[in-house]
């Protein structure tokens, strides 16, 4: 057995409505890790499943189906139907691809889940930040060139009606 996309969607909704930030599910060798911390870009892929404990257990015999990891950041819903896009890194926040160019997005503009809305630079490494939600940008919460923390709210988006 496995999880369908629909199941995953349901799990995401469940997590969204819960007070928890992370959810780790293991069914028949399939492992699902969902975290609401951060926006669009997932933290650097570390080869799949986030281990529950760092203890190096002896390598288990390969499962019949390799563990799949769905590492998707979930934008957090706020009270007024607004969804927050948070930084997945501590670093310098840039609103445009280059100095002097137009910003990726602005207030009143539409974004899709895959839209790049900003860049967070961590030691000359540019990490693009995706919206992770479809809707209209209603607030920009950090200035261009500002140091942003991990988990800091950068945008608020009025999400499309489901």
């Amino acid at each position, binding site marked *: 057995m496995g999880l369908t996309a629909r199941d995953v969607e349901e799990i995401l909704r469940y997590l969204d409505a819960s007070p928890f930030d992370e959810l780790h599910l293991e069914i028949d060798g399939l492992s699902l890790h969902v975290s609401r911390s951060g926006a669009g870009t997932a933290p650097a892929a*570390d080869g799949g499943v986030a281990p529950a404990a760092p203890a190096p257990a002896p390598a288990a015999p390969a499962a019949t189906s390799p563990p799949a990891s769905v590492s998707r950041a979930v934008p957090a819903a706020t009270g007024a139907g607004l969804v927050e896009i948070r930084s997945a890194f501590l670093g310098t926040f840039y609103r445009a691809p280059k100095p002097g160019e137009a910003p990726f997005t602005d207030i009143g503009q539409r974004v899709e889940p895959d839209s790049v809305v900003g860049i967070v630079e961590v030691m000359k490494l540019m990490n693009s930040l995706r919206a992770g939600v479809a809707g209209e940008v209603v607030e920009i919460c950090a200035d261009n060139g500002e140091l942003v923390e991990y988990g800091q709210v950068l945008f608020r988006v009025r999400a499309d009606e489901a």
Partner: protein
Amino acid sequence: MSAEGGTRRIGRVLVANRGEIAVRIIRTCRELGVETVLAASEADRDAMAARLADRTVCIGPARPELSYLSIPAIVTAAVGTGCDAIHPGYGFLAENAELARTCEQEGIIFIGPTAEQIARVGDKLEARAAALAAEVPVTPGGRVENAEEALALAGELGYPLLVKAVGGGGGRGMKRVDDADAMREMLALATAEAQTAFGDGRVYLERYVTNGRHVEVQVLGDGERVIHLGDRDCSVQRRYQKLIEEAPAPAIAPALRAALRAAAVRFAGHLGYRGLGTVEFLLDCERDTFYFLEMNARIQVEHPVTEMVTGIDLVAQQIAVAEGRPLPFGQDDIRLDGHAIECRLNAEDPAHDFRPSPGRVSRAEFPAGAGLRIDTHIEAGAMVPPFYDSMIAKVIAHGHDRDAAIAALGEALRACHIDGVATNRDLHLAVLADAGFRRGGVDTGYLGRFLAAPAAVGGG
């Protein structure tokens, strides 16, 4: 950008650590008038250190590899908040040469030795070579590439012996081999573990000293001159993890003690060491001699016992030396007064094989008084997260002699009340009351034997 030949004042420090040591570093910075920025993971945003720091930035999620072990996150946090120095504490990136090197490149002062010195003492084979060059005795042993070489060397050394990871340290990455039959298996295991834990599969063999004590010497260097600040005994260990430490080391003949201290100063001097460090030795009780184990190029968990007997703030000295200032005192200025002992309180359950006991602390009461010191980040309502080590407090007592220190420490421990998580407090009380410990000079096998004895830990 380094302070070669000149001094550079530190005005703002990024504290790249958590728990009690973050609190400890912030306290000294405050006294020195140095501002602090705490680099905290998401799990530590509301911890005591975050409240004490002038500013806290969240550098990443709870998982250490994405926060406390992330060099880009730490350095970006330091640059972005205008810090001119990073204090790494102990553990995490404290002995990471790459962080020290990156700091040098970014023009940030790394409060610790140079990247090159960290790399040299971090590679256990290089450290052994440096010890030999400084005429400091090392345990008989050497590098082995495969089982055949290991069996041949073991034939010369004799069993039992230890397989150690070249990139290991602090008791991690060690396997004991009792006879030739076990060699192949243990060597393979040790190599695999070394690769996983340290990203370096190289191992070496060392003779296992069956009746050894762990004695270490605190050293401090400014790059020109090295002095020692006395010794410590850390032989009360469980699975190579220290539980009780004291200064000075008890029951050592004056000549041997002098030789230990001189060897430590020679070793650090050979490296031109700049910063605070600890040279660890194995004291062979049967042969009345000692061997170099390793050097820790950072502040140690057990540094308070040295501070209690010397009256010197070691974090302040780290900062001064990092600023490029020469040592403010010479060896003859160091006075050791009385005796100090530290117990590490861990959130773990001795009644259930020491399993970790994370959770919400509902009550936390610690005593206060002359000659007492509690280093902790725990208060009522604090969370002990499951992601990090389980130490929640260090209880340290000073007395005019060892007996007085033991008595004061016992009283202090009995006045510690922590609810919500299990702790090893009663084990400490049982050890302090044990005749073997009270005599002084136990070996590293002591606690294992004590725990194996029936009814070791009563309902204290």
